[in-house]
């Protein structure tokens, strides 16, 4: 035992070198790529890969988002790509003839220790990214590797290492998230197969637990809460101990992956009805000439898709920007109703009422065993064919039964406002619909009732028995909520 201290360094060194030899030590040794969606892969080759003259889906996507080794920061997207904002104080020539710009930061900020690139935001060089050959962090003097064709002037604002935040996010994401959520955010990492429920596939841009209304995306705060506090009842753990800037970087990267996935989906949607493999084959069968179809596709790529490539990005940027604004946030018009037996009784009445019909899925006693959970549901993605197993399914095609409210486990948070948001906006991607037209007082009564379910001694013990007219109605036929 007393030998340990003297032997330890040796043994440790041996072990470390063995590990290093097997696993490799640097991040750069780990190469990865973004997978393309099934939608993209279902297109005809020319639509996927592009024609001689015109880019296809893959190139349009890669030009805007890059791959994990070489991420691209598409300016249009409302993502904080990171980097230090500076402005040009002075432009001069060095002795060797290369261009030197002196950069300053706003008061209170400090210059970064390293600088690889300078990206100009304003001035004649707007949009250009120039490599930095030498960087003096004390004076802020950057010797540019190449002389720009356009004139750099004092007062131009520029960003040092634009995209640094995104690549930090990527690094953290690959370390902590990708083994479940996958490199491209498809929820299909190596550990995902062992999990129920499945990790979120970000590529629809749909997140379940959010504080924004039913038409909006999740806000940054919503994603931040999930990363910080985890999701009880699922495999998503809490990352509370991570630093704030790390949280921020990860969330921006997740938003980046969502936007990439959604953009890909939108591009595919433009093409899939006419140029998917199956559509192409059936068109050929119905007598169209192959060359003509491809000629038509080429024209479509050249004009329509090129145009929509820009406008789809604008739409995407707008929806994600809106999510962080006040107009998207759910704000109850009245404060929470006092949590009294009367309120809970009213909540239970509403819960069982025919109009809201919560019990249809969540069950009369809130055990998540309503009649819908044993009915066979139609699969809208497969021409309304019935699913093989009974129960409710989400848009990711997983069995997604309604929550058992007796467990007191609230995935999206247990604050009254969290439950209010769940009821008000519904849960996107799942069968939980939005009840935004229900008066806010009534939603609060339901919240009070739902929060009391885990403590009920018997179903409805906190309320009175429902009147006969409002007793839960078991539907004769299975109703299928309209998919998005």
């Amino acid at each position: 035992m007393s030998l340990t201290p003297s032997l330890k360094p040796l043994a440790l060194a041996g072990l470390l070198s063995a590990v290093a030899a097997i696993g490799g030590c640097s991040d750069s040794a780990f190469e990865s790529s973004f997978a393309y969606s099934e939608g993209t892969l279902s297109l005809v080759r020319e639509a996927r890969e592009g024609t001689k003259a015109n880019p296809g889906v893959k190139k349009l996507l890669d030009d805007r988002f890059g791959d994990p080794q070489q991420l691209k920061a598409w300016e249009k997207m409302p993502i904080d790509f990171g980097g230090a904002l500076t402005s040009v104080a002075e432009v001069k020539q060095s002795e060797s003839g290369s261009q030197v710009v002196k950069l300053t930061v706003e008061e209170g900020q400090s210059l970064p220790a390293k600088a690889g690139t300078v990206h100009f935001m304003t001035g004649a060089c707007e949009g250009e990214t120039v490599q930095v050959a030498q960087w003096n962090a004390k004076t802020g003097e950057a010797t540019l590797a190449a002389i720009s064709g356009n004139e750099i002037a004092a007062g131009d604002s520029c960003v040092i290492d634009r995209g640094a935040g995104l690549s930090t996010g990527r690094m953290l994401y690959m370390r902590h998230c990708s083994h479940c959520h996958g490199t491209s955010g498809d929820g299909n990492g190596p550990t995902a197969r062992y999990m129920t429920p499945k990790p979120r596939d970000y590529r629809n841009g749909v997140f379940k637990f959010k504080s924004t209304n039913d038409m909006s995306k999740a806000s940054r705060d919503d994603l931040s809460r999930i990363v910080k506090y985890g999701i009880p009842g699922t495999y998503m753990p809490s990352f509370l101990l991570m630093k704030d800037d790390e949280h921020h970087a990860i969330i921006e990267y997740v938003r980046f992956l969502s936007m990439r996935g959604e953009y890909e989906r939108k591009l595919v949607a433009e093409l899939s009805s006419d140029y998917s493999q199956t559509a192409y084959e059936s068109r050929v069968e119905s007598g169209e000439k192959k060359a003509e179809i491809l000629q038509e596709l080429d024209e479509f790529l050249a004009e329509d898709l090129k145009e929509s490539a820009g406008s789809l990005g604008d739409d995407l940027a707008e929806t994600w920007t809106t999510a962080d604004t006040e107009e998207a946030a759910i704000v109850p018009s009245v404060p929470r109703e006092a949590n009294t037996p009367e309120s809970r009784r009213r909540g239970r009445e509403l819960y069982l009422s025919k109009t809201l019909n919560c019990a249809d899925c969540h069950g009369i006693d809130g055990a998540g065993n309503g009649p819908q959970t044993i009915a066979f549901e139609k699969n809208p993605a497969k021409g309304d064919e019935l699913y093989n197993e009974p129960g409710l399914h989400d848009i990711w095609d997983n069995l997604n039964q309604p929550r058992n409210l007796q467990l007191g486990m609230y995935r999206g948070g247990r604050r009254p406002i969290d439950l209010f948001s769940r009821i008000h906006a519904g849960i996107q991607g799942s069968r939980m619909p939005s009840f935004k037209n229900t008066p806010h007082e009534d939603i609060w009564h339901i919240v009070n009732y739902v929060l009391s379910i885990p403590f009920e001694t018997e179903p409805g013990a906190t309320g009175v028995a429902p009147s006969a007219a409002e007793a839960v109605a078991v539907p004769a036929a299975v109703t299928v909520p309209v998919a998005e």
Partner: protein
Amino acid sequence: MKKFWALFFFFWPTVAIISCLIAPSRGWWFPSAPMSRTGIQIDGLFYLILIIVSITFVGTQYALGYALWMGATKDSASRAHFSHGSHKLEIIWTIVPSFILVFISLSQLDVLAEIRVISKFPEQATKIAEVTARQFEWRIRYPKPGEKLTTEENPGDLYYVNELHVPTGKPVIINLRTQDVQHAFFSPQLRVKQDAVPGLVIPVWFDVLEVGNYDLVCAELCGWGHYKMKARIVAQSQSSVDKYLKELEAEQNEDGTKSEAAKSDE
């Protein structure tokens, strides 16, 4: 060459003596000074055993070195002496170690009882929280301020994750349980380690001596995300803990309208 091996076996016990002497002052053995009262006792036991074991190790190694040295320097023509079969020696080396082992086991009984036996828990110890381990995080449940912690959940309980606030300077108890597989509640600085066993609610007591942040990690390989199971124990004065719980209560009763009012105040 014979002498080399003799010196070789003299060398290691010498290294052991030096490292044992300087280890306590350099803090090689422990991640930090003990931050709880039982931690100090545990460290005391550790050093007691370290002394006994070091003396034994060094003594036997020097004896080995001495025997080798004598053999190396002896005239090769002289005859060897065999002590095999000596009853006296065998009795000595059986009785001496058994006394040592009995001494060690008796001397740690009190500390073990104090840590593990519920009836020996300090009387003034209060149950402050329930800590539920799950793959891969620590879920914390505090009773509603002013109420007592019970095994069952109660309306008004306060919930948090991966951060446990404890008052300093007084013994506290947490109820440890697990939602899935075995985990272990381990705080290296507090010298607290207790397995969480499915189906059991295990009370664990400790007292934190100084204000500060301490690690809480899982010490039972619980699955692929074992390394992620890291939380923080925040030790603060009782009044700070009370203040924290008040804030947590306000946060947990958040109805989304008050914060709007607060925003417009700013």
